C-alpha cells in the first residue's frame, strides 16, 4: 500500500532526472558520427526535370564552405527556419544546397515558390535513402562541409538570431583555416 502511494512521486522523479539531463544536453548539439568524416556518396535528381540535381562533386567542391540543408514542404519547423536560410545564403563564400527529404517534388516547388528559394541548387531525395547515409535524424537538418569533410551538423531549425551569434563565427573560423 505504501509503495502505491509513493509511485507518482517516483515516476515524477524519473521524469525530473531526464529533464535535468535534457536541459544540459543541448538537443541540437549532439555529436554526429559523421563529423570530420568525408561526405557520403550523393547522387540525386533535381526537383524539376531529369538529370542530376546534386552529386558528390557538388558537395566536395574545394575552397568554399558548402551547406547542405535537408527540408520538406510537410515540415512545420522548416517554414520557421526559412528566413534564417535566407540570411545564411547571403554570407559570402558559402554555397547553400537544399535536399527535399521524402517530399513530392511538386510540393517542394510550391513550398519554395511560397516562401522563397534561398538555395543555390536543389535536389529531391524521394525515398530518403541518401538521408540515411548522411545520418539525418529528421527535418530540418543542416550540414556544413569544407573540402569534402563534414565539419558541423545542426539538428532542428536554425533561427535567425543563431546565424549571427553561432553560425557566422563558425563559418568564418572554417574559412580562416589554412587551406590544407
Amino acid at each position, binding site marked *: 500500500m505504501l509503495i502505491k502511494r509513493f509511485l507518482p512521486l517516483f515516476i*515524477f*522523479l524519473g521524469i525530473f532526472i531526464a529533464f535535468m539531463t*535534457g*536541459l544540459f544536453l543541448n*538537443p541540437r548539439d549532439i555529436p554526429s558520427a559523421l563529423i570530420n568524416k568525408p561526405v557520403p556518396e550523393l547522387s540525386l535528381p533535381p526537383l524539376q526535370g531529369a538529370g542530376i540535381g546534386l552529386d558528390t562533386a557538388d558537395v566536395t567542391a574545394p575552397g568554399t564552405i558548402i551547406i547542405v540543408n535537408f527540408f520538406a514542404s510537410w515540415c512545420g519547423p522548416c517554414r520557421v527556419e526559412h528566413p534564417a536560410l535566407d540570411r545564411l545564403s547571403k554570407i559570402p563564400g558559402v554555397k547553400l544546397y537544399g535536399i527535399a527529404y521524402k517530399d513530392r517534388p511538386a510540393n517542394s516547388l510550391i513550398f519554395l515558390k511560397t516562401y522563397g528559394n534561398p538555395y543555390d541548387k536543389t535536389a529531391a531525395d524521394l525515398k530518403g535513402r541518401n538521408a540515411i547515409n548522411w545520418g539525418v535524424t529528421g527535418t530540418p537538418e543542416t550540414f556544413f562541409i569544407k573540402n569534402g569533410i563534414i565539419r558541423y551538423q545542426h539538428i532542428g*531549425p536554425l*533561427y535567425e538570431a543563431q546565424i549571427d551569434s553561432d553560425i557566422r563565427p563558425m563559418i568564418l573560423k572554417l574559412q580562416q583555416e589554412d587551406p590544407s
Partner: protein
Amino acid sequence: MIAELGHYSLILAFGLTLIQAIFPMIGAARHDGRMMTLGPTAAYGQFFFSLAAFLALVYCYIMSDFSVAVVAHNSHSLKPLLYKISGVWGNHEGSLMLWVMFLALFGAMVAYFGRNLPKTLQARVLSVQALVGLGFYLFLLLTSNPFDRLADVPFEGNGLNPLLQDPGLAFHPPFLYLGYVGLSVAFSFAIAALIEGKVDPAWARWVRPWTLLAWVFLTIGIVLGSWWAYYELGWGGWWGWDPVENASFMPWLVATALLHSAIVVEKRDTLKSWTILLAIIAFSFSLLGTFIVRSGIITSVHAFATDPKRGMFILLFLALVIGGSFLLYALRADKLQSGGLFAPISRESGLVMNNLFLSVAAAVVLYGTLHPLLSDALFGVKSSVGAPFFNLVFGYLTIPLVMIMGLGIHFKWKRADLKGVTQRLMAIAGLSLLGALMTLYITYGGKIMPAVWMGIALWLLFSVLQELSVRLKLFRIPLKQSLQRFKRQPRSSWGMSLGHLGFSVGLIGIIATSSWNLEAQKVMGIADQMTIGDFTLTLDDVIPVAGPNYSAVRGIITVSSKDKPDYKAYPESRTYISSPMTTTEGAVETTLAGDLFIVIGEAQGGGATDRFGIRVYYKPLQVWLWIGAAIMVLGGLISLSDRRYRIGSPQGKKKKGSPSHAH
C-alpha cells in the same frame, strides 16, 4: 513612467502574495481567525496590483513605447490595434505576465465565491494558490522582467510574426492560460484537503465547478489553436501532435478524467485519493506545458524561448511544486477513508473505466512527447515518435473508451442492471452497425477501420439521444408531459448530454476529415482548370491587393459542381511589410458536407505568362469537428450555470453549508 508603475505594481503584487502564502496557512493551523481573514484581503490586493501591472504593459504596447524592450522586440507601430494588444502575450515575458494575472484572478475568485467555504479550508486553498504564484512572480521579476527599458530606443519595433496575426490566435493563448491556471484551483483544493486530511462530498461539490470552468476554457483554447492552424497555416491540417499541442492536450485529458471522478466523490463518497491525485496531475501537466513551451527543451515550432537559465528556474520550481505535492500525497493520502462500495457493473465502475482510458491516453501523450528527450538523456539515441504513433494508439484507444461511454451513461449508481441496459441498447447497437456498414458501402474499396470508427461514434451519438429520451420518457407518456420533463431536467444533466453529444459529433468530423480528405495541386495560368472530387476550379484572374500592413496577390477562382450553384473563391497570399514573410489566406467554403479549401502560392515566372501554384483540399465533415467542440463547450457552460453549483448562491449555501461545517 507607465512602465515603471507597472514594475512597482508587480513588486507590490509579489509582496501581497507573500502575505497570502504565509499568514492564512499559519492561521489555519492555529485556528487564528484574524490571520485567516488576511487571505481574501491579500488575494484581492494581489489581483488588483497584478491587473495594474498587466494593463500597464498593454498600455505600452498600444502606445508603441519602443523604449520598453519587449515592445520593441515584438510590436510594430503599423500593426492593427487588435494585434498590438494580442502581441502582449505573443512572447515570453508578456505571456508569463498574463499567467500570473490569471492566477491572481482565480485567487480573488476563490476569495469571493468561496466565502461560504469552511474558514480553514479557504485559508489553506488561498495559501497554496499564493505559493504557486510566488514562483511565477519570482520568475518574472528575476529572469524575465517585462518592463525592462532599452538604452537605445529604436524608431520602429521588430513586429509580430505575421503567422500569429490572426483573430483565432489572438484569443487562443488567453483561453489556454485561463484553462491552465484554472486547474490551479482544483490543485489548491487538493493540497488543502491533504493538509486537512479530509475529503468529503462537499469538497467535491466545490472542486467540480472550478474544474469544469478550467475545462471549458481549456477546450476553447485548444480548439481555437487548432482552428488557427487549420485556417492560417494553409496546410489543410488541424492537429499535428506537436509537443506544444500535446502539452495542452494532456491537462485536458486529465481534467476530463477529474471532472468525472469528482462526480463519484460527490455522489458516492469514494475514489477520493484517486481524485486528489488527478487534481495534482492535471495542474502538474499545466506547469509542464508552460515548461515545455518556455524552455525549448523539446524541439518544436512553438518553443521560442531557448534560454537554459529560465529553463533551470522553471525546472526547480516544477520539482518543488509537483515533487512536493506528490510527497504530501504519499504521506497523507492514507488519511482519506473510502466510502461507498459499488458493484462491477455500475455508473461508478463505468466512470472508473473512463478514468482509466483517459489516464492511459494522457500517459501515451506524455510518453510520446518526452520520448525524444528520454531516449537522448538515457540512451544517447536521437529518435522521435511522430504523428503516426499517436494516430495509431489513439485510433485504438478511442474504441473501448467510446463504447464504455455509450454504455456507462445508462448505468445506475451502485449496481446497474446489465441485462436491462443491454436489451434497451440492442436497437441502437444495430443502428450503429448499419451505419458502419453503410460507411463501408459508400467508401467501397477504401479502408475498413474508418467504417469501424464511424460505427463507434454513431453508437455514442445514438446512445446519448436514447438516454435523453429515457429521461424524458419520450413516446411513452404524452408529448406534453415529456416537454415538461424537458424543462425540469437539471442543467448539470443537460451538461452531461451535450458534452457527450458534442464529443460524438466532433469524433464523426475527425474520422471523416482524417480518413477521406482529398488533395490536389496544379500550377495554373489564367483560365486554366483543375478538378478535385466533384468540383471544377477555374482561375479567372489574379489581382494585387494592399492591406494595412501587408501586400497580397488575390486569386479569383470560379468553383462549379454538379449539385451546387457556382461560387467565387478569393484565396490570398500575403507578404508582410514589417517582416518579409509570406502567409497564405486560404479561401474556405464550408458546408455541413465538407470544406473546400483553396490556397494560392506566389507567381511563378514573370509578366503576362504568370502562373500560380494552386493547392486544393476537400475535407469531408470538417465543420462537424468545430460544431462538436462548440456543443461540448456549451454543455460545460450550461452545467456550470446549474443552481447547485452556483457557488455562493443563497440556495446552495443552505444545502451544502451544513454538512461541511461539522468537523
